[in-house]
């Protein structure tokens, strides 16, 4: 075999995979494709074919969404489909939750590497499913189905589809199960299982789903939707093969990937600057005293997430998470599949906005995920049910590092302060129809985005994990849960401050309706520390906010008396105080006794970080923000140094003269309060040497140093400490 030939098809799949990897190593090109021959020979045919493939994926997904019963898939689009090579590399994909284009690739390769060709066998019409993150997904609710594509008895590709399930049968309802501290409480696992043959899902598999889920209609109909989309793609690929011939197909899918790889390298060289970029974020979580959490490790903990990005002269991006924290007995661990997927979805949004988007882009990157950390646990029993909690902040750092490279190159319009983690609400119990139910509420797919270098972030319109970012219609959510909205409001001051502020988030306020037992559970809260950041002088968006609920409020009385009703928490966070009843204020995951009809519950989402110095923000724009509830009048004055006043008919305007004076004062005050970094460092070094930190902070340093000598050495060197410096255990 020469390196220019496609891999021989009569090889077993595992040998084909090994040969493909070897060819990549030997030639530096995907599958040994050193020349894009088909593209050169007939570019129009080549491009047309890729467009057809992509259209096949998009249309298969749209068709499948209409089969689903889940508002997550139907309303919010929590689904993606893709077409793969026989070795499991993505060739073309639909829009949607693109993180899984690469996690499905891991799943297919895992089956190949684990001898599935021999047992359980891979045949035309087989359906394989998986939601095990160590095999290839992010978390249990991300259930993926793949089907082989055969042509005249030969496997020539795969079709795959993923839906995020709204209920996965864990210890708490929903899928982002924050109470899961090991995999055994995360819910129903399907571990690379053959769940169907001859295009039909097995009845016994469906029965298992029906008996182990709180709301099986979502999962089971999503399975039907995924299988339908896989069949649609499979038949689409066969039609293409009929048109172009099998030899062309075998070559062209590899060329598509190699072109994707080359395109990524070229874009990096076009848009960025080579060098080393560094950043970090943190995550602070509290569960101490919350019922249901087992004392298996620290109950309140602080994670550091440092990230170093090297852009090499050949355009390769290397990401290194060395120095981060170990995995833990919590639900936020991630697997390499999830981390790879995070990289893939970030690249597709921020760099691959033209040309071919497929696994080739991912191949132009390199990730160092230190073994034993939350990014790559050395124990496969760990829980990953809420791995997005750490994954999103970590790739938010990547977005900021990438953005600095865009800024340095002059492409300011591509600078983006990044995605944020945002808490999720899930529920279960008795529905408004009197039936058992469980559901994740996906209005969280519309948080605030980070700012850009030229404008404010998007308000209530972006999450990194679903680029379509749709909160869904209130009426649809109300059909699916025993709560009705009494308010959905912009959360003022929730965007990080800056010349360009981060996008604001929103808060929902619900009245429980026609249920005597509703368990409300939330997850993914970094309440103690910022898990997002600003850029170029912008501030992070606020930390995850506390929950406010009112049990047995006197709402009916107020309605009867025609008194004002609360529709949220208000600018002053006190609007709910209009109500009498048992007021509940909870930090972190909401794990409380069930609620019932008449109770009020609020849940807020997170905003994005800011860009640039607050004293450069446009006063006129800020007056509009105050008028529309994005910024409070107080924050305009105290944070931005902007004086605004309300005029006729509720219109706000900026007082430019007063603003100029206030800003001059604030700048002078800033200079008078700041001190030289060298002076502060001398004091701080003494504090570090004395280990004068909160126990959780000491533990964080101790663990980072235990896992990384590099972290210890750099820490010690920075503070002028002995090279063998140790942070004592938390007492």
């Amino acid at each position, binding site marked *: 075999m020469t390196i220019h030939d496609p891999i021989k098809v009569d090889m077993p799949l595992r040998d084909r995979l090994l040969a493909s990897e070897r060819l990549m190593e030997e030639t530096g090109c995907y599958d040994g494709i050193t020349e894009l021959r088909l593209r050169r020979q007939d570019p129009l045919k080549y491009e047309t074919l890729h467009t057809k493939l992509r259209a096949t994926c998009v249309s298969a997904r749209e068709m499948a969404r209409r089969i689903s019963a889940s508002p997550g898939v139907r309303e919010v689009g929590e689904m993606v489909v893709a077409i793969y090579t026989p070795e499991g590399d993505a060739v073309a994909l639909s829009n949607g939750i693109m993180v899984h284009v690469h996690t499905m690739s891991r799943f297919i390769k895992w089956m190949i590497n684990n001898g599935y060709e021999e047992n359980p066998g891979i045949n035309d019409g087989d359906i394989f499913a998986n939601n095990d993150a160590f095999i290839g997904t992010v978390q249990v609710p991300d259930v993926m189905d793949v089907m082989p594509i055969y042509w005249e008895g030969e496997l020539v590709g795969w079709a795959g589809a993923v839906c995020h399930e709204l209920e996965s049968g864990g210890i708490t309802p929903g899928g982002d199960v924050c109470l899961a501290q090991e995999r055994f409480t995360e819910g129903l696992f399907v571990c690379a299982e053959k769940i169907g043959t001859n295009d039909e899902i097995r009845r016994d598999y469906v029965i298992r789903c029906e008996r182990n889920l709180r709301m099986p209609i979502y999962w089971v109909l999503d399975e039907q939707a995924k299988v339908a989309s896989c069949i649609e793609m499979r038949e689409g690929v066969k039609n293409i093969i009929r048109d172009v011939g099998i030899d062309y197909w075998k070559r062209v899918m590899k060329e598509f990937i190699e072109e994707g790889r080359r395109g990524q390298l070229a874009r990096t060289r076009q848009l960025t600057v080579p060098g080393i970029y560094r950043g970090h974020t*943190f995550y602070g979580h509290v569960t101490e005293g919350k019922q249901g959490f087992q004392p298996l490790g620290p109950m309140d903990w602080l994670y550091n997430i440092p990230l170093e990005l090297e852009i090499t002269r050949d355009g390769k991006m290397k990401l290194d998470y060395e120095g981060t924290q170990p995995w833990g007995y919590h639900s936020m661990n991630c697997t390499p599949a999830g981390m790879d997927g995070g990289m893939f979805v970030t690249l597709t949004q921020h760099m691959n906005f033209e040309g071919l988007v497929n696994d080739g882009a991912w191949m132009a990157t390199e990730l160092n995920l230190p073994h034993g950390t939350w990014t790559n646990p050395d124990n496969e029993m760990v829980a990953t049910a809420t791995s997005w909690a750490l994954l999103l902040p970590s790739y938010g750092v990547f977005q900021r590092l990438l953005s600095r490279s865009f800024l340095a190159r002059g492409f300011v319009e591509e600078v983006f302060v990044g995605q944020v983690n945002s808490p999720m609400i899930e529920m279960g119990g008795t529905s408004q129809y009197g039936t058992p139910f469980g559901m994740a509420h996906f209005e969280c797919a519309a948080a605030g985005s980070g700012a850009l270098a030229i404008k404010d972030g998007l308000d209530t319109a972006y999450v990194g994990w679903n680029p379509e970012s749709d909160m869904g219609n209130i009426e649809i959510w109300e059909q699916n849960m025993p709560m009705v909205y009494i308010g959905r409001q912009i959360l003022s001051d929730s965007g990080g401050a800056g010349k360009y502020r981060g996008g604001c988030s929103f808060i929902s306020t619900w009245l429980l309706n026609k249920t005597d037992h509703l368990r409300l559970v939330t997850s993914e809260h970094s309440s103690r520390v910022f898990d997002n950041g600003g850029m*170029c002088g912008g501030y992070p968006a606020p930390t995850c906010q506390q929950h406010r609920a009112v049990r047995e409020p006197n709402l009916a009385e107020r309605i009867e008396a025609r008194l004002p009703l609360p529709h949220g928490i208000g600018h002053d966070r006190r609007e709910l105080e209009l109500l009498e009843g048992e007021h509940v204020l909870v930090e972190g995951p909401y794990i409380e006794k069930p609620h019932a009809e008449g109770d009020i519950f609020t849940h807020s989402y997170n905003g994005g970080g800011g860009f640039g110095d607050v004293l450069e923000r446009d006063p006129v724009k800020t007056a509009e923000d105050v008028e529309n509830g994005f910024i409070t009048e107080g924050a305009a004055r105290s944070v931005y140094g902007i004086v605004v006043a309300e005029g006729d008919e509720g219109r706000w305007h900026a007082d430019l003269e007063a603003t100029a004076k206030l800003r001059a004062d604030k700048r002078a005050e800033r200079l008078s309060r700041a001190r030289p*970094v060298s002076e502060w460092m001398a004091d701080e070094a003494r504090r570090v040497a004395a280990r004068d930190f909160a126990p959780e902070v000491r533990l964080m340093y101790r663990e980072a140093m235990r896992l990384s000598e590099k972290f210890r050495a750099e820490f010690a060197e920075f503070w002028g400490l002995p090279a063998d410096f140790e942070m004592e255990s938390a007492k």
Partner: protein
Amino acid sequence: MTSYSKEVIADLIEGNLPWHDTRRIMSAYKDDDRFDKAIAALQDRVEWDAPIILPVSSHLFIADTAKGRHTLCECGHDFGHWTKNWKLSAAVLIRDSDELLAEIYPTADLPDPRWMELREFICPTCGHLHEVEACAPGYPVVHDFQPDLEGFYEDWLGRALPPEPGVAA
């Protein structure tokens, strides 16, 4: 090949370009001469003459001064040699109490200052806020960006990196 005038790029950088035009630039093929146009626009904006080699933040530039290749604030404040972390030569305001954090977050729940502080890195001359670090107390100051200037100029831009003033070739 896509290309825009220096004036358009200057407006884009300042956030003054109408959204319709900005959106068009975002969606179009990228302009290969962007770096030079952006440098020219930024050079017009700053009040000093030292040639800009690379922007490293919105108001910080690596520039060739009489003292050598240094990181300069837009106001001209010199943070030292470009290979050093400019933050170590800045002024800093540490927000490590509820009171100080509430100045920036007047209506929101606050982080725990025992776990997290904000470090504001400020130009000692003009008071511009260049960068905010949000980190645990005791965390080493991050050196955000160490560009490979030689690789960038020679391999990517296809021209020699200008010799650093005062340094023998």
